[in-house]
């Protein structure tokens, strides 16, 4: 317990040393963040939600917030456009990088802005939503982010606007030697009947011993349609502890695709609230791990109102001695009659030493609902491998082909071709052996 107290105090001291020239709205959030963090501290493994996540890599050191962004190497700067064209903001070590960003021809009805630029006169439409969904009392990394973020993205889509090209947010972590923390922050408000596609991508240098703790808040007003693609592709020394909150109002549709492929330890907690009748939430996820990677998706879907729909489809592929967690809770509140909720998690374990945990959960307090869940952990089918080999296909390629088929199924619902193509490339690079698979027709 002493160690825990000490861990708290370094973050508190860091908070006390923050500059005093911050705008009042930001300072208020910072204060709330550190107070909530101080109240609960880092979770330990006796807490159910953190039972399988080994945080010792994080609690053993002080990850100090980066004060000055580093230089972006050629490889990373070339990569910022990898998911195709869009209205793009690039944050380097948590701060906006203008030269890598591209907001040309922003259409009417779309606001894409850096939080740091608002200064003292941030509009109410921003301050009214920023921090409203993130539960700083429940999640210490949401609290840390709220205590320390200095910049971030504000995306606002005006009533009825249908934005064709995606909004692309890229968070780049540059090479550094010392442990450090980056707190990306994103808040998205999609007004009534509006439609937008959003890509949020996390990349970074391999040798970065960083804690990256992003918070993303998505508000979908009545009838809004929000597609959100979250791509976690950071370097091999990164500890990524992310939080996503989405709230769907009446008849709104929130569709998320999460891909987790990078980092040493990567966890994202996705909270989705069906907050009014007829809303739907679709969560798809793909995690690819190798070596000693740890990847963890926790989903929390709350059906608070009647006639809501949720669909979850998560797939994982594991190599080496990697470990993964899928833990998904669907909670159907008492009044949420006629809820239709489905949850699927399938894992493909390619190496014996890899370990997949799958824990889909249903908590139902209404009596007229349709809920289903399922989970599998398995290996490649011997019969299928032999069938492919008996036709002349090399074992590595056969394994690659079957793995590809398994994993790419969750990419089918992605509505931006360039994003899907990019995820496919990430998948191809990941596949075992030197597979010569170019496309899956």
């Amino acid at each position, binding site marked *: 317990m002493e160690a825990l107290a000490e861990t708290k105090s370094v973050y508190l001291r860091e908070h006390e040393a923050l500059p005093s020239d911050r705008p009042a709205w930001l300072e208020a959030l910072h204060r709330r963040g550190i107070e909530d963090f101080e109240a609960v501290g880092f979770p330990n493994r006796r807490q159910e939600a953190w039972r399988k996540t080994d945080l010792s890599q994080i609690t053993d050191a002080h990850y100090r917030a980066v004060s000055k962004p580093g230089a972006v190497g050629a490889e990373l700067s070339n990569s910022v456009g990898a998911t195709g064209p869009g209205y793009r903001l690039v944050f380097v070590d948590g701060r906006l990088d203008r030269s890598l960003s591209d907001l040309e021809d922003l259409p009417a009805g779309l606001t894409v802005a850096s939080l740091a630029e608002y200064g003292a006169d941030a509009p109410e439409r921003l301050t009214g939503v920023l921090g409203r969904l993130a539960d700083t009392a429940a999640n210490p990394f949401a609290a840390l982010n709220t205590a320390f973020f200095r910049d971030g993205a504000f995306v606002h889509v005006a009533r009825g606007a249908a934005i064709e090209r995606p909004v692309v947010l890229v968070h780049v972590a540059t090479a550094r030697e010392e442990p450090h923390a980056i707190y990306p922050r994103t808040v998205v408000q999609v007004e009534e009947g509006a439609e937008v596609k959003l890509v949020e991508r996390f990349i970074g240098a391999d040798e970065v011993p960083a804690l990256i703790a992003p918070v993303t808040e998505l508000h979908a007003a009545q009838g809004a349609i929000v597609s959100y693609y979250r791509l976690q592709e950071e370097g091999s020394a990164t500890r990524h502890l992310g939080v996503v909150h989405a709230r769907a109002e009446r008849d709104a549709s929130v569709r998320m695709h999460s891909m987790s492929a990078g980092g040493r330890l990567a966890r994202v907690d996705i909270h989705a609230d069906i907050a009014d009748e007829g809303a739907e939430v679709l969560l798809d996820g793909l995690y690819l791990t190798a070596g000693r990677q740890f990847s963890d998706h926790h989903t929390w879907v709350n059906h608070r109102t009647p006639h809501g729909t949720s669909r979850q489809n998560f797939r994982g592929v594991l190599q080496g001695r990697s470990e993964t967690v899928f833990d998904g809770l669907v909670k159907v509140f008492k009044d949420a009659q006629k809820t239709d909720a489905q949850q699927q998690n399938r894992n493909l374990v390619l190496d014996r030493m890899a370990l997949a945990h799958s824990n889909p959960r249903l908590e139902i307090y209404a009596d007229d609902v349709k809920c289903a869940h399922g989970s599998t952990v398995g290996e490649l089918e011997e019969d299928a491998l032999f069938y492919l080999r008996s036709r002349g296909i090399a074992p590595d390629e056969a394994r690659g*082909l079957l793995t590809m088929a398994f994993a790419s*199924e969750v990419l089918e619902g992605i509505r931006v071709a360039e994003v899907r193509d990019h995820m496919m490339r990430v998948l191809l690079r990941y596949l075992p052996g030197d597979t010569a698979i170019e496309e899956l*027709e």
Partner: protein
Amino acid sequence: MALLEIRNLHASVEGAEILKGIDLSIEAGRVHAIMGPNGSGKSTLAKVLAGDERYQVTGGEILYRGKNLLDLAPEERARDGVFLGFQYPVEIPGVSNTYFLKAALNAIRKYRGESELDAMEFLQLIRERAKAVKLDESLLQRPVNEGFSGGEKKRNEIFQLAVLEPMMAILDETDSGLDIDALKTVADGVNAMRDAERAFLVITHYQRLLNYIVPDEVHVLVNGRIVKSGGKELAEELERSGYALFEEAAA
């Protein structure tokens, strides 16, 4: 020299000996049929020839084109012209029939020192061969065997045979589960591929298929051994008398 020469082959599955000394010699251009009751070892022989590692060869040898076949991995056998038409074709969700065949054909062509086919040439080839075996073209884009009817699966095997053009084709109960029309189509596909270079080993429980694929030689397999060999009239004899006589003889 024979294309395929099996000498005193013994094989087991999970410790149980299934093949107890098979001798069989198949010349290029010939069609051999193996008939036998359930459990006689027909499918084990087919799987051993294709290289399924779940079957252990415990004795004997197999020479294919003068090489020791047992030294070759399944994919090497396939590239060198061995083809197994599966009794139970495997469903492979997420991999289209077309993509699968392209990967297979290119692997085989590469081994033969031929260039890979370009997309147009390949499509032309598979359309032509699909037509020849009356495989519905819509099945080409579907995942391999997924949701195919029993007949479609078997037809798909013959379609693959037609595209990959092996030297030594082994058909494991390709007739099971087929109605008479599908059976004729499958037989037509096989007959169209008979030539002086290529050999077939047709494994079947029933004589019916052999009315349409007329074999040069027929072997009766009972309890892991070939108990009788003869011409096509042996199949007819079996149809009349059944296997009981041979089973007694083998016991």
